[in-house]
């Protein structure tokens, strides 16, 4: 039976993974475009060129009014960048909601993301950690499920980092905060929301870099094939009797 082998990743996981990938890069590119119009960060409600920044990025800006120390001004691309940012945000939030609802109902989180009790012992954790720092490549059997550090990383991105990024993004909308001011006051103010949004981006970029590195290390072709078709190469050969 060709379809008796459960896919490595469900259709929901595969589709939402690639929607998120596409949206992530759209959001990152457009986010950088928007950021360079004012590459300074503040805390609280007030932040402009007359206010002492918490952090200034050592890059040129796309506005002549921002003092950067560079003798030139980058081109302004905010118009389409903002539209792309929010369109991609809608797509990733809607597909993310679908992913979370499906993950709760089909047991994906319980089975694949919540670590097994046995994996939470100090010894198991330190072994997994040691495997990672030695760049030890997992066998195909081990790669058939997520290891404990991987599970923590995915849970943190899905349930902490991603929601915080959406929250801090919405907190910058003057219309959204008119519905519920606490959306922004809980964060410490408009500029605090913007600053946290930026650091969320940094963490998400770090996650993506480590994620790609790990996929590379554990077999880029097979891992990527599994995320596209649902199956790794060996499984296809065995179960469908095709010629390699």
């Amino acid at each position, binding site marked *: 039976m060709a379809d008796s082998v459960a896919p490595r990743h469900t259709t929901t996981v595969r589709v939402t993974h690639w929607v998120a990938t596409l949206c992530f890069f759209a959001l990152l590119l457009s986010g950088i475009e928007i950021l360079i119009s004012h590459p300074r960060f503040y805390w609280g409600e*007030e932040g*402009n*060129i007359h206010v002492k920044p918490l952090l200034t990025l050592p890059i040129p800006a796309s506005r002549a009014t921002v003092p950067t120390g560079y003798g030139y001004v980058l081109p302004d691309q905010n*118009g389409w960048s903002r*539209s792309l940012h929010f369109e991609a945000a809608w797509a990733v939030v809607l597909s993310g909601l679908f992913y979370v609802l499906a993950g709760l109902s089909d047991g994906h989180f319980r089975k694949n993301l919540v670590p097994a009790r046995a994996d939470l012992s100090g010894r198991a954790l330190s072994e997994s950690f040691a495997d990672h720092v030695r760049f030890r490549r997992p066998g195909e059997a081990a790669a058939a499920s997520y290891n404990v550090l991987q599970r923590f990383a995915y849970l943190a991105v899905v349930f902490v980092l991603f929601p915080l990024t959406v929250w801090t993004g919405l907190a910058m909308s*003057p219309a959204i905060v008119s*519905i519920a001011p606490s959306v922004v006051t809980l964060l410490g103010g408009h*500029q605090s929301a913007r600053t946290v949004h930026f650091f969320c981006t940094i963490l998400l970029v770090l996650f993506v870099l480590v994620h790609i590195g790990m996929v590379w290390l554990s077999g880029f072709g097979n891992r990527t094939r599994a995320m596209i078709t649902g199956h790794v190469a060996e499984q296809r050969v065995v179960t469908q009797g095709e010629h390699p």
Partner: protein
Amino acid sequence: MNQLSRRKLITTALGATAGVSGIAVAARLAGRNGLTPPAWHGIFGPGDTVTYSAQRLMTRHTMARPFSREQISKTPFANEIAPPTGEFNRLQAGGFADWRLVIDGMVARPASLSLADIRSYPSRTQITQLVCEEGWSYVAEWIGVPLRNVLEAVGVLPQAKYVFYQSIEKGWAASIDMADALHPQTFLAYGMNGGELPVGFGGPLRMRVPRQLGYKNVKFINRLTVTDSGPASVPPGGYSWYAGI
């Protein structure tokens, strides 16, 4: 092709058809209820539309976030723009005594108001935040007359849907829907932080729309036009027509 994947194909096709027709129905309903923005550009139409409909549904009557007097920024930022033109300078030299706000379009009594006329309406204040799409912000007290009061005085015709407003500066203009135009915090602002509205901040007259970003808060306005149709295209630079986020 085996049995299961054929069934999958049919389900997928049916699902896709249902999805597409669902979106088409939603788009029609949104259009009929004034939930689609009047202008967007190309591939960003869906995003602009979903943002505008969602925010319009949730914010028709919400109030911009209030701030306390202590939160007023000591160092607000005027955002330097091109120096005002000769016409502006001439009016400024005369203390803006000849400044006029022309109100035309779908109104029962078109008008040309001096600053004194505008100040004769009961004045209101709000302490709200101005947020620029670039990322900077400040809090200020704004003094002015709710646009609603002026629109009621000139008699807006029932078919009106948008208010266009124009700066004396070439190329600076914007428009808002009636929900924002009639919102109690949408001001024709002529004062700031207890005094006159400084020229850098848009004096003598600026539109204040606190639930939208800075670029809808056009400076030096001298003309309002009430219409039943939105702008033909998005603002220059490809910025979204709706700026609630």
